[in-house]
């Protein structure tokens, strides 16, 4: 059994939070540069140019790319042959999150649903995070983190289609979500689509789909083609960068299905669309 110190996890979480909220990842930078080159609308091009300049300033000054430093979202895979010494993994993630957000001068954005009171005093600074745990073979801990802002989360939607609606129904649903959202979620967007599983799991998969690097293809060739088909359709909407009109509305569409077997119930076709703004702050570490 491999042993990992509690403090190692805390510090790793803290570092990944501060780094990824101030440094736009390479895949996003490449995607934004490509969008800038391909954008035909003058006003959208000006927006994309500001975004690239913003990424440059944020990295140089270690300043948050966006003031909405989000809810902290984690997908964690724990090897069956590793144990944490000095505390629980969940506590370490909480402590790393609080330290990262506090010491990195990030915004505490968690509040009580009803009173709307910020939870920084009662629960902790930007606590609690949202964590999905999974148990896997091996002796490593894999942690994926994203800072998920409210603007793009607010326009995300889930549904359960009738099986007969099939791929056309999925495409129409995604198109409606993005079209209705218009400028609000800060396009150009990354669109995560979870298909199958159960109603709730489709939503989890649509979130996890956002962690995939832009520019990578879905391993399932049929779905890789479907991702491109949906992306082309969305870019015809004309929404453009920050909704000011243009050709670059969506940087990528990422589909995730329930494995094995792209499973769902014989009576259902669950579909969830999780929308991600252009400030896609995500990172991945293995301890």
């Amino acid at each position, binding site marked *: 059994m491999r042993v990992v110190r509690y403090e190692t996890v805390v510090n790793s979480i803290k570092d990944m939070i501060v780094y990824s909220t101030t440094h736009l990842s390479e895949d996003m930078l490449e995607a934004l540069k490509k969008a800038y080159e391909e954008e035909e*609308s003058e006003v959208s091009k000006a927006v994309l140019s500001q975004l690239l300049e913003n990424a440059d*300033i944020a990295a140089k000054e270690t*300043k948050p790319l966006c003031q909405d430093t989000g809810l902290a979202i984690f997908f964690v895979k724990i090897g069956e042959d590793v144990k944490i010494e000095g505390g629980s993994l969940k506590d370490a993630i909480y402590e790393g999150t609080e330290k990262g957000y506090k010491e990195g001068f990030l915004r505490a954005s968690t509040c009580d649903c009803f009173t709307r009171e910020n939870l920084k005093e009662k629960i902790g600074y930007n606590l609690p995070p949202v964590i999905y745990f999974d148990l896997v073979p091996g002796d490593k801990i894999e942690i994926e983190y994203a800072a998920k802002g409210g*603007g793009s989360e607010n326009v995300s939607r889930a549904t359960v289609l009738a099986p007969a609606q099939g791929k056309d129904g999925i495409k129409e649903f995604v198109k409606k979500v993005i079209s209705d959202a218009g400028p*609000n979620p800060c396009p150009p967007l990354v669109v995560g689509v979870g298909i199958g599983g159960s109603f709730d799991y489709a939503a989890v998969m649509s979130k996890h789909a956002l962690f995939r690097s832009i520019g990578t293809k879905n391993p399932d060739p049929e779905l890789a083609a479907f991702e491109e088909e949906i992306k082309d359709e969305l870019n015809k909407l*004309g929404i453009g960068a920050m909704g000011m009109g243009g050709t670059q509305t969506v940087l990528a569409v990422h589909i995730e299905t329930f494995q094995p077997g792209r499973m769902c119930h014989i009576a259902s076709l669950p579909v969830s669309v999780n929308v991600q703004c252009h400030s896609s702050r995500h990172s991945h570490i293995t301890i």
Partner: protein
Amino acid sequence: MAEYRLKTPLKEEDVTKLKAGDIVYLSGIIYTARDAAHKKLVELIQNNKPLPFDLKGSVIYYVGPTPPKPGEVIGSAGPTTSYRMDSYAPTLIEHGQKGMIGKGKRNEAVKDSCKKHKAVYFGAVGGAGALLAQRIKDAKVIAYPELGPEAIREIVVEDFPVVVVNDTYGNDLYQEGRKKWEKN
């Protein structure tokens, strides 16, 4: 698409020359407020109480910045989504507010109010919080410090880049821009 440099407070002739799609660089004092602060401002107006700043010609920026590091004027400071302020904005416009800065769609009541009382809605680039913070030269909390990032701040901006989304003639850049680039 024209470009203008304007100083706050804004006068009627400043805003009536603007058209949806124009780029504007704002300089001078502007105020920050989000939903919680808007609610309080509207309550003050309804109760005939004095406001923490003069609404006449004012520009309000919808922003909840990150905390500043020691030595910084302000943290990352990009716009938040504006629709949350839609139910309050017309009252403020009626009482003299001339500009709003945010991102995302406004409802018909806000657009009508812009037309009727000569005010404009500017869009700033969401997610450009580090860049926009560089154009903010001074910041101080003037009301509701208990709201934290949502407190009302008086900030001094220099060449703060915005785009006119809703002008005083009923034009809407989001609708028109999209129509222009939509492919069927």
